[in-house]
């Protein structure tokens, strides 16, 4: 159990950093849609449309790392299972 929790914590920490970095290391808040500029060729007006796209931000990274830290912390509170149980005699 202890080892499992530590393994999950490590996967969560590394996975979230890799996901955040792969998505463009967004240092702002998490985006659930991304603005895209469009230009009207006749008038020259610049408009904005929003496309649904998840871009993790520092809040996502922070929450994942805190979660990983909590799991690792819980794992230290668990007792290690003994392989050599002592005789009651």
């Amino acid at each position, binding site marked *: 159990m202890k080892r499992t929790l530590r393994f999950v914590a490590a996967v969560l920490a590394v996975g979230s950093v890799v996901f955040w970095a792969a998505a463009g290391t967004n240092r702002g*808040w*998490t*985006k*659930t*849609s*991304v*603005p895209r500029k*469009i230009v*009207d060729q*006749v*008038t*020259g*007006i*610049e*408009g*904005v*449309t*929003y496309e649904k796209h998840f*871009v993790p931000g520092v809040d996502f990274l922070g929450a994942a790392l805190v979660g990983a830290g909590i799991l690792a912390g819980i794992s230290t509170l668990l007792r290690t299972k003994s392989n050599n149980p002592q005789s009651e005699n």
Partner: protein
Amino acid sequence: MKTKLIILTFVASAGIALAAPQTFDFKDPKGINNAGFKLDAPLESINGSASGVSGTVTFDSENPGATTGKIVVATASLMVPNSMQRGHMLSATWLDAAKFPEISFESKEFKNVKTDGDNTMADVTGTFTLKGISKVLTVPVKLTYMKDKLGDRVPGQKGDLLVVRAGFSIKRDDFNVNPGQSEDKVSETIELTLSIAGAAAK
């Protein structure tokens, strides 16, 4: 002599007809018309835009200073990239979109009108309404009249276009937008930009 008078009358009436004010509709079938907003606070910068633009402007190319009109932005069309942030923005604490569904500017007077070809620059005084509170503001505006260009933008239609560009700022305290709260994250000053095209079909 009689023939000359008839011709003169015809030319004069044609001239009056050409110079008549036109009403431009700013409901954009292409969905490009937008109002932008920017709040630059010490801890956070918020950028967004609104696409729900409507309204009409009456414009006379021979007398741009007599322009009148009202532009309306649907509060619910305000967008920011974060859905949770958008939810907060439209909630009762901030813009209260359910109770105040429209943000508007209605022009009253054009001053310092300078026309150069099809472009007109002016300081427009009008009533800006946000969250049910109306204030008189003077806003620098650029109007561009594009004669017979509607067909280029909307195939199959004939008419003129009027492009309106404006940029100004307001204080959120003046419009009861969660006054005095979270100023480190949500700037007191809101910078607004407007880039819209209206159509007058013939």
